[in-house]
């Protein structure tokens, strides 16, 4: 057991650090970074420039083959760069879906022509993609989507509504899952397209979340015309295509970020109580220990997955536990931190209580973290079925045409 790089990894890491130090500034703790200082437009511009710069230096999409503009590096090199990059103050959060989810699907499923047209501009950040899958009535049950694509003499006409679309308002293109035949069983009537987000009839509206922020969009389709040449899957073959995309998505989603033990200790070391500060309080210490063991457990589990990558293998299912554990913990830990502040815990303003604000923010975010990317319950199903080999749920929706299935609200 050790945490050291191999010789090759160490030299790659040095190369990454050299590049980063030359072109970016290290993050300073306690200072807000670019991503929270710049205006949305300026952030987008900065992100595109940074992506292009990385591409010029072979640090964009490191594991992609040369054919698609990547340097053809290894998975572990990709991780090493990401580890170092997160120490630097660079514009974040724009290309995750575009490059982590959409492009791998385009590369896997698209025609040569399509790939030649789209992959390199996406890699360089010149064009951004979003994923148009989820719908109000199709979240955990993604195959239940209702957005219709009807075949006409001149192509397809799409009507319906997508939801939870990250960055739809910034995107140039989208990967779109539709129902082309509601008269067959639900998994057989789906078809995947790509779509230009400027196409008439597409309307993007931000979703207001509990936190008051809007990290997602709704996307409405009203008589949107899409030529058949933009079809990516076989007609009726959309589910298989989507499964590939989802597998990629699951890898791209990390744990639930937010306040954790570090922030809790910082708070406790400042809060007065009978025994001095809360950090000295035996109850607090018991809870802290429990949470710390989880957080460290998840960090170390990541190390185990990286070890497998480093040895050239494919990580096992261990990391499927990360979001489940950390999202629940985020909610409980933030709730507890607010209790520690007694009546003051209800105040929601960084201006009044900077140290506390991180918990109130986490508490508002946690319900979403427990749902986005798979609810707690779906994740436990996945672990039980795919990892532990339990039989699947009894399905009542497998053998009846989609349009004969009972529907609710």
């Amino acid at each position: 057991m050790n945490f050291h790089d191999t010789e090759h990894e160490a030299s790659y890491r040095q190369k990454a650090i050299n590049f980063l130090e030359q072109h970016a500034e290290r993050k300073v703790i306690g200072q807000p970074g670019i991503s929270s200082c710049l205006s949305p437009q300026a952030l987008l511009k900065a992100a595109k420039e940074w992506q292009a710069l990385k591409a010029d230096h072979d640090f964009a999409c490191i594991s992609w083959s040369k054919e698609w503009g990547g340097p053809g590096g290894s998975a572990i090199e990709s991780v090493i760069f990401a580890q170092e990059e997160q120490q630097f103050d660079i514009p974040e959060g724009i290309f995750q879906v575009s490059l982590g989810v959409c492009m791998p699907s385009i590369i896997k499923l698209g025609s040569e022509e399509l790939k030649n047209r789209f992959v390199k501009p996406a890699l360089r950040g010149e064009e951004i993609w979003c994923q148009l899958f989820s719908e109000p009535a199709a979240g955990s049950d993604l195959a239940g989507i209702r957005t219709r694509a009807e075949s006409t003499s001149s192509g397809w006409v799409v009507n319906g509504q997508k939801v939870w679309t990250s960055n739809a308002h910034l995107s140039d293109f989208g990967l779109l899952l539709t129902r082309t035949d509601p008269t067959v069983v639900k998994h057989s009537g789906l078809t995947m397209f790509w779509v230009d987000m400027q196409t008439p009839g597409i309307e993007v509206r931000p979703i207001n979340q509990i936190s008051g922020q809007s990290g997602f969009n709704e996307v409405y389709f009203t008589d949107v015309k899409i030529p058949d040449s933009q079809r990516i899957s076989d007609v009726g073959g959309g589910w298989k295509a989507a499964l590939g995309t989802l597998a990629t998505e699951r890898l791209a989603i990390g744990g639930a970020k937010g306040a954790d033990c570090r922030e809790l200790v910082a708070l406790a070391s400042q809060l007065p109580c009978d025994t001095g500060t809360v950090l000295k309080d035996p109850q607090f210490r018991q809870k802290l220990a429990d949470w710390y063991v989880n957080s460290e457990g998840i960090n170390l589990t990541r190390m185990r997955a990286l070890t497998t990558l480093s040895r050239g293998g494919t990580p096992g299912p261990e990391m499927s536990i990360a979001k489940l554990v950390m999202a629940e913990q985020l909610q409980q830990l933030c709730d507890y931190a607010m209790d520690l502040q007694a009546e003051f815990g209800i105040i929601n303003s960084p201006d009044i209580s900077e140290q506390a604000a991180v918990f109130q923010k986490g508490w508002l975010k946690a319900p979403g973290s427990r749902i986005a990317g798979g609810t707690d319950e779906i994740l436990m199903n996945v672990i039980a079925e795919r990892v532990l080999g339990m039989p699947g749920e009894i399905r009542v929706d497998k053998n009846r045409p989609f349009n004969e299935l009972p529907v609710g609200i």
Partner: protein
Amino acid sequence: MDFDFTEDQKHLQQEARRFLSANCGTARVRQVLDEPDTPFDAELWTAMADLGWQGAILPEAYGGSGMGATDLCAIAEELGRAVNPTPFASSVYAFAEAVNLLGSEQQKSRILPHIASGHQIGCIATAEGAGRPDLECAFVDSSITGRKVPVTDGDVADWAIALANDSHGESLYLIELKRHGVSTSTLPTLDPTRSCAEIKFAGASAAPLGEAGSGKALLQKIHDRAAVFVAFEQLGGAEAALATAQDYAQQRYAFGRAIGSFQAVKHKLARIYVANQIARSNCYFGAWALESQSEELPRAAAAARIAATRAFQLAASEMIEIFGGIGTTWETDCHLFYRRAKQLSLFLGPINMWKERLAAEIEKQWAHADSHGGNL
């Protein structure tokens, strides 16, 4: 054995529910949520006063209706169910009860009629920042100086009761807030449907309330009484959250079936039901102890408070998980419950403090039972 609301109380509760459905639907609550300059629903407040709720259990001599504590508990459950956006908890459960319990004849006749009529609002100002630091407010030269933060409803209140140091130790004071020497500023909170403020006293005139030097013990008495009513609000909130989640689980389909047919959803709902039943039973005991002026009130109040806090927080957070993605949006009502559950869990002090209080009561009971050869 008659451990339930009476038929009359059930009737009162049904009437209250009918009134609140009509006058305090979630659309009304959301008006306060979405409008930063509206600290509470003044129209609702007036309508409640017309029904006599603010003075329900105050003596008739002071403009009240002289009802029993359990009657107000029945109303409180409904107010909780409706996530009412008013200063009722501060003004009625805490302030009015405190003045009625501790005030001089003069204080009561001067203040309570205005509280009962809803024309004035009272609040309790206890916290002085995060955690439970030492008391810094001080009463010197017949006036009070210091800072209370946060004070629920402090920005809309006409009166506050505050703890301050004085020559006797720690004592309670009554302060008229819209006077010289008092400045209040509204604070943003996680529950914008309930108002909250910072109050600064700079030589504000203040009158002693209750026995000098006994401030802490008196405050605990006030908290015990208020905690029972608040527990009923929490219970009502928990029941509403459960009913909403139940309804959704029956109507929302996934994988071709109602999501309520999945065991994971069933068991979540069952856990909420269990917590709510335990809360209800402990709340009833609190109501009994309050109404019968039992010595067991401190224990009963703490148990009701703990059980109801647990229940409402569980129901409110798990209802979002049952709703799924849509539950995390501003437009769905789930977050009204989520916010209020947290707000009420901190109003009157956090749950750990109440657990410690309950343990202290159990310990007392044990010492007594032990020395008398009795039972716990």
